[in-house]
């Protein structure tokens, strides 16, 4: 097999010349250190206390040197965007070293002692690993620790002292490379391995018999958190936990441009199409695409946004608080003089950082945001209460009143349980204050709680792992996440037993509603934002199809004629919604008749085809039986043929993710 690439072309690239000035400095510094080293080699062997002090001083001077020389900030475009709090950085270095007093070697020469190495990635601790204590600088230690981290901890033949020392960093030594390799800070791998993201497990929707269960009801869902979690997993070289994949969130991650109705009488359009199922020749898909109107920028309501920001110690990682600060700037650009912003932090005790302030006072707002420092443990409940208090204070009648919670999900709600928190959020929702949740970081991201909070607060939950994702969530979709055009949107589909034998709703498992809740306006459901699209797909098995799973009922005949209205329709779609400031719902209905059957997948719109590819992908990641025989390649092909314009490259990224999943699945 020939490759599309020649690895040896790596060799042909011409290395750049080192910067001459830096080279001189480096060589001079090296000589100075060399001389120093000779001098102090005479005075080795001091105790730990002295060592720690020496290190503190050293850390400080190294940090300052690094900062002044611009070393911390040099390199790529990092300089513009990197925000490592100095105090945090120092604390991190000291803490990190303090936690590992034992790992001081006699120098990196053990690296090369080949004889103790056995095959594979396992290395026994080199002989003479435990040297006389001596003053070792941080750099060498780090070097050694890194080298060690690549190997599994050796089992028995360690002297007891060594065993104890190694234990001070067990997961560092045993952590698989994949995790270590991506660890943003060196502390994080150990944390990651021990604490997993909390994800709510749920059963995939099964096949329902139309005779027994003709009605299906669910709430729409515009959350997207599952997509980013899935992407993160694949990029790190592992398949996502099947339980973490919510198919409808994957589908709704992408924006589709379904047709809008001719008039603005209703806030959105409902488009239905039927086509053969790509992964099963004997079934059909009913594709429901809902497209919301855009709120005109001039007529959009004023926004009263309260940011509730988690500044607990666990947020002190580059992909958390610093990313959040940058994301915040992006959002600020989208707001104007109509809008107010407040900031509340929580950690230890909740505090107001910024009283409601006009969005045009950028300086004040940015100053407040830049002043946030991580530290302390999380006391979420107090923070939420304070945030809602500010939201009420700055309440805009007829406007958007929203608490935006940003956290890594390490949410300590004190004595109260998740349920109590949920109740509180529900109460505030009825006051007209909604809640959106933005998840950051990984390792202990509490997906389950975030979902619950957002769903009960009439809000969305999004997971932000990159600045690009922040751009997508906060800026491009600012309109849709901030300005709902319809709330409590519920869908109910009644299937016709004369034409449809069985059906299966793809995704929306966590959004299922009881049939009787459809007409109950007190039951909460999902929102549609300005310009948003929502997609739901049913797989249906026509009567008489060889794919029917349930045996026909022996006594079903009489019943069937009774319910058969003589219609050749597949189903009847009902949709309920409320306008944002209303409490009574409106009803929309559409019969799904054979005239909507496009006959082939190619007859569907590009967007519909792409959403079906995503649905197949999500189901395959969830290890759903229905798509077991449908290959990753087929998914990729279907998606590649439906990429459309893809101005931001999201769909191309999806194609790459399918490719990665394919490789990882082998």
């Amino acid at each position, binding site marked *: 097999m020939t490759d599309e690439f020649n690895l040896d072309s*790596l060799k042909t690239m011409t290395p750049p010349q080192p910067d001459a000035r830096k080279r001189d400095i*480096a060589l001079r510094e090296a000589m100075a250190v060399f001389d120093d080293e000779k001098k102090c080699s005479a005075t080795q062997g001091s105790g730990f206390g002295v060592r720690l002090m020496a290190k503190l001083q050293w850390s400080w001077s190294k940090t300052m040197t690094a900062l002044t020389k611009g070393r911390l900030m040099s390199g790529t475009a990092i300089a513009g965007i990197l925000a490592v709090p100095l105090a945090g950085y120092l604390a991190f270095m000291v803490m990190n070293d303090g936690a590992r007093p034992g790992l001081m070697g006699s120098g990196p020469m053990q690296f090369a002692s080949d004889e103790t190495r056995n095959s594979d990635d396992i290395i026994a601790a080199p002989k003479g690993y435990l040297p006389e204590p001596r003053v070792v600088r941080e750099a060498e230690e780090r070097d050694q620790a890194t080298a060690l981290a690549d190997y599994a901890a050796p089992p028995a033949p360690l002297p007891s002292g060594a065993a104890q020392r190694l234990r001070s960093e067990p997961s560092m030594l045993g952590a698989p490379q994949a995790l270590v390799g991506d660890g943003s800070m060196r502390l994080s791998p150990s944390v990651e391995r021990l604490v997993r993201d909390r994800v709510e497990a749920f059963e995939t929707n099964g096949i329902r018999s139309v005779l027994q269960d003709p009605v299906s009801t669910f709430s729409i869902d515009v959350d997207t958190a599952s997509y980013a979690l899935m992407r993160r997993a694949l990029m790190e070289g592992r398949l996502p936990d099947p339980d973490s994949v919510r198919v409808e969130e994957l589908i709704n991650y992408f924006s589709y441009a379904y047709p809008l109705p001719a008039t603005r009488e209703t806030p959105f359009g409902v488009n239905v199409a039927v086509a053969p199922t790509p992964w099963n020749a004997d079934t059909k898909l009913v594709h429901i695409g809902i497209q919301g109107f855009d709120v005109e920028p001039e007529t959009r309501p004023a926004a009263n946004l309260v940011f509730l920001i988690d500044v607990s110690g666990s947020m002190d*990682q580059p992909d958390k608080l610093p990313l959040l600060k940058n994301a915040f700037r992006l959002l600020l650009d989208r707001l104007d003089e109509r809008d107010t912003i407040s900031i509340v932090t929580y950690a230890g005790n909740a505090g107001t950082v910024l009283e409601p302030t006009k969005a045009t006072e950028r300086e004040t707002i940015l100053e407040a945001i830049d002043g946030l420092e991580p530290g302390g443990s999380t006391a979420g409940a107090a923070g939420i209460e304070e945030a809602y208090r500010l939201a009420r204070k700055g309440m805009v009648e007829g406007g958007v009143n929203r608490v935006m919670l940003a956290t890594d999900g390490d949410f300590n709600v004190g004595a109260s349980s998740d349920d109590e928190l949920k109740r509180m959020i529900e109460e505030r929702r009825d006051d007209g204050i909604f809640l959106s949740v933005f998840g950051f970081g990984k390792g202990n991201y509490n997906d389950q709680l975030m979902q619950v909070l957002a769903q009960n607060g009439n809000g969305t939950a999004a997971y932000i792992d990159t600045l690009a994702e922040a751009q997508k969530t906060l800026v491009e979709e600012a309109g849709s996440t901030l300005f709902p055009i319809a709330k409590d949107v519920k869908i109910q589909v009644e299937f016709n037993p004369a034409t449809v034998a069985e059906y299966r709703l793809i995704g929306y498992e966590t959004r299922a509603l009881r049939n009787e809740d459809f007409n109950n306006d007190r039951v909460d459901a999902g929102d549609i934002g300005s310009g948003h699209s929502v997609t739901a797909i049913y797989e249906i098995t026509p009567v008489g199809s060889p794919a029917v799973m349930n045996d026909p009922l022996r006594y079903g005949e009489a019943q069937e004629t009774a319910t058969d209205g003589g219609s050749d329709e597949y189903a009847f779609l009902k949709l309920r919604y409320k306008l944002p400031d209303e409490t009574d719902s409106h009803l929309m209905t559409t019969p799904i008749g054979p005239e909507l059957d496009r006959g082939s997948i190619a007859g569907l719109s590009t967007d519909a085809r792409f959403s079906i590819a995503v649905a197949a992908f999500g189901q395959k990641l969830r290890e759903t039986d229905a798509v077991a025989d449908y290959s990753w390649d087929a998914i990729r092909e279907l998606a590649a043929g439906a990429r459309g314009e893809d101005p931001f490259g999201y769909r191309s990224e999806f194609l790459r993710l399918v490719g990665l999943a394919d490789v990882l699945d082998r």
Partner: protein
Amino acid sequence: MAASAAHAGDGDQQLAARASAGDRHAFARLMERHYDTIHRIAWRWCGNATDADDVAQDVAIKLARTISGWRAEASFTTWLYRIVLNTVRDRQRAFASERRRVEAFAVQAMVEAQGGEGADGDDPAMRLWSAVGSLPERQRDAVMLVHGEGLSHDEAAGVMGVSEGTVSFHIHEAKKKLRVLMKTPEDELS
């Protein structure tokens, strides 16, 4: 060929031995001789010259500090590779998230500016290089050492502290992944 500097020193072992015994002059010569090599290795792993300058500076100081612990039975070249790679790795760990983010953002900005054209550029070697950079650490190291630096599997095994077979395995896995990464969505359409 590119690796010739790293292999050059017959005198390396002796120089290193003398430097480890405290010979200032020997250490100076060793640094003179290898600074560019250090820079080159760092560049190959970091992907840009500025980062490589910083890593090379760090490595120079690290060498000064640790040369006294070097023992003659180990190969100086292997040792050098290890220190450079470890330094790169430390640095990349600290900055990994930031860099990914910045790049993701830069890529997106470029995509927006160019209307859908990927940011990888047309040079297949550059594309390959950046694809290799995105591999898991061990696979990346194996590929770079063998195919970039021109080391034998055995030598690479020495640097990575694994068996020769493991190096081959990592390269095999890397190729599998690269095949996917190097495939552009455009190819699939045709």
